[in-house]
């Protein structure tokens, strides 16, 4: 006896009318983005490619792209590629890279502990992580200026612990103070997205690694770390985007030392303190373009990982 399997009769699926109901849920977000991102960016472009009122020295935005004047942008690019602004850009990239490294070194172990080891204390630890957000960033930086003074508490503690013999002037305009300030200010932003990724890693995969003979370290480097890369990427992006535009950390912690000037300081100076707002707006666009490249890289990596996971 042979049995033949025949394909089930196919039912011609009627195309269902596309419901616009769920699409409507995206409207507030789209409206928000148009109002506060697209229009804002266009306004910055209109200022960057506009002119300046000859009498009042205020920006005269060029809303019509046909009237755009690229003089300020060319001057800014010349100064970035071979001029003084290049130094500021390189310094800013250096500060942000060092600060990101600090965030990883401090933030990863904390996020890992809270996500995988804290068990019943997880809720409390998460509250403690969010606690700094209750106080304004500027207030926290101002507090540090007191703690870091020559006769401040930081020097007192370091001398008490015999880690230094003479008090150090931390606020004398050194790069390390700015970097630590950035790490301190932004590390909570780094920990939270990383925590959510680490917390979702399937524990059975880690157990499988151990069952197959890998040591704890090998399991971490071959299982946990690769699986946490999306979280690391997201945390890095969330952290470095505001760091690149930061200007107040440097202003507060070094009282305006030229040795620690960041690109945000130059933007602030040109937009608020000079008669060349178009130069400030051009700098904003250059910084945005640079960050867009980083963002695009992040998106490409994320999409690739999603595709690999779907296979």
């Amino acid at each position: 006896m042979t049995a033949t399997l025949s394909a089930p009769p196919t039912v011609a699926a009627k195309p269902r009318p596309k419901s616009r109901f769920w699409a409507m849920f995206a409207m507030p977000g789209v409206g928000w983005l148009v109002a506060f991102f697209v229009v804002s960016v266009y306004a910055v472009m209109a200022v960057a490619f506009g002119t300046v009122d000859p009498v009042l020295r205020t920006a005269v935005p060029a809303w019509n792209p046909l009237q755009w004047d690229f003089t300020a942008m060319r001057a800014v690019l010349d100064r970035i590629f071979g001029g003084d602004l290049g130094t500021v850009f390189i310094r800013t990239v250096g500060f942000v890279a060092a600060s990101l490294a600090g965030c990883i070194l401090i933030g990863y172990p904390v996020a890992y502990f809270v996500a995988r080891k804290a068990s019943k204390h997880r809720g409390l630890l998460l509250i403690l992580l969010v606690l700094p957000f209750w106080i304004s960033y500027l207030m926290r930086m101002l507090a540090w200026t007191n703690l870091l003074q020559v006769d401040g508490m930081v020097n007192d503690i370091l001398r008490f612990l015999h880690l230094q013999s003479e008090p150090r002037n931390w606020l004398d305009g050194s790069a390390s103070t700015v970097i630590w300030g950035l790490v301190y200010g932004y590390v909570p932003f780094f920990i939270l997205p990383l925590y959510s990724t680490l917390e979702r890693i399937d524990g059975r995969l880690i157990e499988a690694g151990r069952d197959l003979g890998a040591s704890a370290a090998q399991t971490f480097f071959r299982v946990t770390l690769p699986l946490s890369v999306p979280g690391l990427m997201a945390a890095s992006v969330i952290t470095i985007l505001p760091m690149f535009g930061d200007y107040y950390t440097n202003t507060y912690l070094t009282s305006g030392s030229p040795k620690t000037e960041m690109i945000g300081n130059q933007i602030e100076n040109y937009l608020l303190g000079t008669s060349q707002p178009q130069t400030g707006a051009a700098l904003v666009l250059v910084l945005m373009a640079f960050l867009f490249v980083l963002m695009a890289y992040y998106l490409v990596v994320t999409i690739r990982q999603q595709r690999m996971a779907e296979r």
Partner: protein
Amino acid sequence: MTTSRRDFLARSVQLGALLGVGVPLLQACGGDSSSGGQKTQTIADGLKPEKGPLRIFNYDSYVNPDVIADFEAQYGVKVEITTFTTDTEAVTKLASKAIQADVYHSMASTTIDRLIAGGVIQPLNKTYLTNFPNVLESLQDPWYDKGSAYSVPYVYFGTGIGYRADRIDPAQVEKDGWNTLWNATDFKGQVSVLDDEREALIMAMMRKGLFDVNTTDQKVIDQALADLTELIDLVNVKVNIDGYKNIPEGTTTIAHTWSADLINAYAGYLPEGTDASVLGFWHPPAGEYLVSNDSMGVVGGCEHPVLAHLYLNFMLDNAVAEKNFSYVGYLPALTALDADYVIGKGYVPENLRACVPTKEDITKALFEKPLGVEGDAKYEAAWSKFTSGA
């Protein structure tokens, strides 16, 4: 998901439509900050004051709240204060009408000609300003506003060196003058210059004996920039306007600063138990001394111009000005409040007498004057290079 060429074109058209609608929309909403060169009219004599509220546009903490309360009580109106952080920001907001103010409280002398030309401030009707004769004689007809037609002086101050007299010998500062900043290698990280391109570059010029403070000579500006840049490595110089608190707190030992900052330091920032003798101020002799003043004006086309005039007059009253000085620490530009008076009243200690410019200082003073677009651009470019630390 893939995007077809047709989808792409459709979206491009949608984006084009958005921009097509958006551009005129932005033009409509953006306001017109261009000057247009219009001038505003003065108000007639003998008008009744409006019911308010009087809207004041000012730097933060640059007027005594008690004085404002006194004005409210005297005229039965409310006063609303909106603050700004820089002169540029203030002019931009007033010109674009983003701020509806009646009184522009603290105009820099170098911008007043532009504010007049742009119609941002209106001509004053002096019949409302009965206290105007109280103003220092030398500022009743100032260089920036002939006959004080559009403005009345608010406060005045000079530029010099504020220092810690317990760490550096006043006689040495007197001897070295501006070189004090370049010689301060023992105080690395404790030296600052004013965060103001004109002030800082002029200071470097005066150190070299150049007293044309309104020069636009590129060579002179470049040399001043080079000299200022030396300070970065020599003394790890800071750039800020915080001398009023950093000197008394001890984080700064030598600061290129304004005279009023030391009065402020004495009045509000000396740590408890610290004697005023730790503060010192030096300025160049009359004829080489840079003196500045801020002025008050009535905003062109404002809602409450009569009330605004009455406010200006109120602030020129000797008793009111004294009360205001006790809070802001910047000397009112009034004859009655001279050095002897403010020292006698205890507002200024004797060792800071130099913080009150004398009649001779003002008569022979050097003033920063407008330089035009190109002149300002030269100073701004030099300043950007200096602050970049490149």
